[in-house]
């Protein structure tokens, strides 16, 4: 069953057409990865789904509900949560207060503060620490915990690997299967193709705002992904 359905979505970033008549869907409990080079329109896509950037045209449906014009805070109530690029923790709040902001809308679901502490045990010991004092990887984990506490049906993850050491990225991605096994679907935007392919059930590759390749990771060979990623025509090889 389809959870998120995007049809002919166009998003402008200033004068630039960042997403160009894109259509895609995410099934219930599915992990969809959107890969692409810098400037391919991945983050603009997520910002439009989260309600931060209004699309120029097209539609976004969550189940049967049209959420295209819904403001960001109401999309949280509808079941969409974004882990934004750069973590964007509330720097003057403690770790626990950052997490608790995720409970503001109180959607029913399996995620509680105790369960987030179970997922990231170190957080409980450092819950009174200021979020600004955490390392990049720790901040990323808090940002994920904060999003989970709103008990979303769809988790949007924007460039989890950005600015983090590979070992930290691996650790962050290790918790993802545990998150989606509870039924939460995830739409991942990622430049780290290998990581994205490892966790996703399906992949879209964006180029200049359009989907140029779609499929299951096991059906896509490295050369096809590489060509789609860099926009290299097949005829040149």
């Amino acid at each position, binding site marked *: 069953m389809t959870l998120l359905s995007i049809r002919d979505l166009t998003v402008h970033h200033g004068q630039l057409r960042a997403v160009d008549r894109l259509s895609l869907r995410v099934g219930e409990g599915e992990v969809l990865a959107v890969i692409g080079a810098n400037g391919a329109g991945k983050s603009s896509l997520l910002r439009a789904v989260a309600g931060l950037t209004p699309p120029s045209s097209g539609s976004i449906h969550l189940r049967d509900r049209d959420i295209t014009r819904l403001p960001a*805070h109401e999309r949280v109530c509808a079941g969409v949560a974004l882990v934004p690029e750069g973590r964007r923790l*509330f*720097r003057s709040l403690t770790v626990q207060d950052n997490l608790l902001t995720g409970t503001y809308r109180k959607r029913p679901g399996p995620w509680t503060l105790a369960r987030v502490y179970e997922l990231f045990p170190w957080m409980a010991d450092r819950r009174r620490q200021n979020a600004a004092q955490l390392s990049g990887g720790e901040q990323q984990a808090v940002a994920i915990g904060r999003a989970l506490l709103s008990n979303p049906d769809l988790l949007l993850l924007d460039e989890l690997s950005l600015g983090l050491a590979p070992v930290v990225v691996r650790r962050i991605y290790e918790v993802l299967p545990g998150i989606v096994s509870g039924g939460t679907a995830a739409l991942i935007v990622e430049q780290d193709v290998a990581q994205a392919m490892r966790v996703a059930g399906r992949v879209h590759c964006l180029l200049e705002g359009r989907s140029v390749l779609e499929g299951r990771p096991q059906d896509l060979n490295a050369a096809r992904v590489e060509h789609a990623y860099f926009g290299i025509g097949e005829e040149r090889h």
Partner: protein
Amino acid sequence: MEILNAVIQGLLIGGLYALFAAGLSLMFGVMRIVNLAHGDLAVVAAFLALALVSGTGLPLWLVVLVTVPMFALLGYLTQRVLLQRSLSSGPLATLLVTFGLSIVLQNVLLEAFSADTRTLDGGSFATGSFRLNAAVSIGYLSLATFLLAVLVLIGIQLFLSRTGLGRMLRASADDRETAGLVGGNPRHIYGIATAIAFATVAIAGLMFAMRSSFDPSIGPSRLIFAFEAVVIGGLGSLWGTLLGGVVLGVTQSLGAQIDPALTLLAGHLVFLAVLAFRPQGLIPGRTA
């Protein structure tokens, strides 16, 4: 002994300055709005209470209980209807809107109540005092105002730290867009911040009106004291605001001991000194 008396009187009036300043600090901390109409709102509260007392014959304590929630509601509506529209146009637009509001309020008061100086009769409570010793006497109203200021600040502090809405207020002060991503409706959150600011300034206006005379044009001078208390204490810090108010009050009081003409100047000089040597204030806030 005169010095001790001056320090105590200054400390007590510092509570009133903190009450004036708390809302100003909160609105700036959460929304980056510098409310130039803040002092005039205190005067509006004073005139409103005066009109209610003389018009309905209700006792003053009841009028105070009615005026403060009315101001909270007025604050929420002012934010949603007036200030929110200007927020998207940048800080200069909100500055101009609150400046315009200040002028409008002063002129409406002038039209409705004339330029005459008024007082809010607080009865024996406003004029009574008790003696600590031969040189130091403490007014009941001054002491009540100071204690009220401390209670209001504790209340705001508890609200900000212990409630979900208070947490969202702090989160919005840090990063408005991300607060929306966790479900915070910025318009509602800003409305709540303004409601608290208006309620505190109403309390300040009423306490001020019981101890001093007032007229429609004194708002801006109250605003200057509030600004000075906020800057001396540290932007975005509630307890800094109380300390700022106390420092300002004590300085003015000590200045008056040297020469009554120095009362205001002494406060301004301390304000300038803090700006020059410790611009972050005595207790810098987290949202400053």
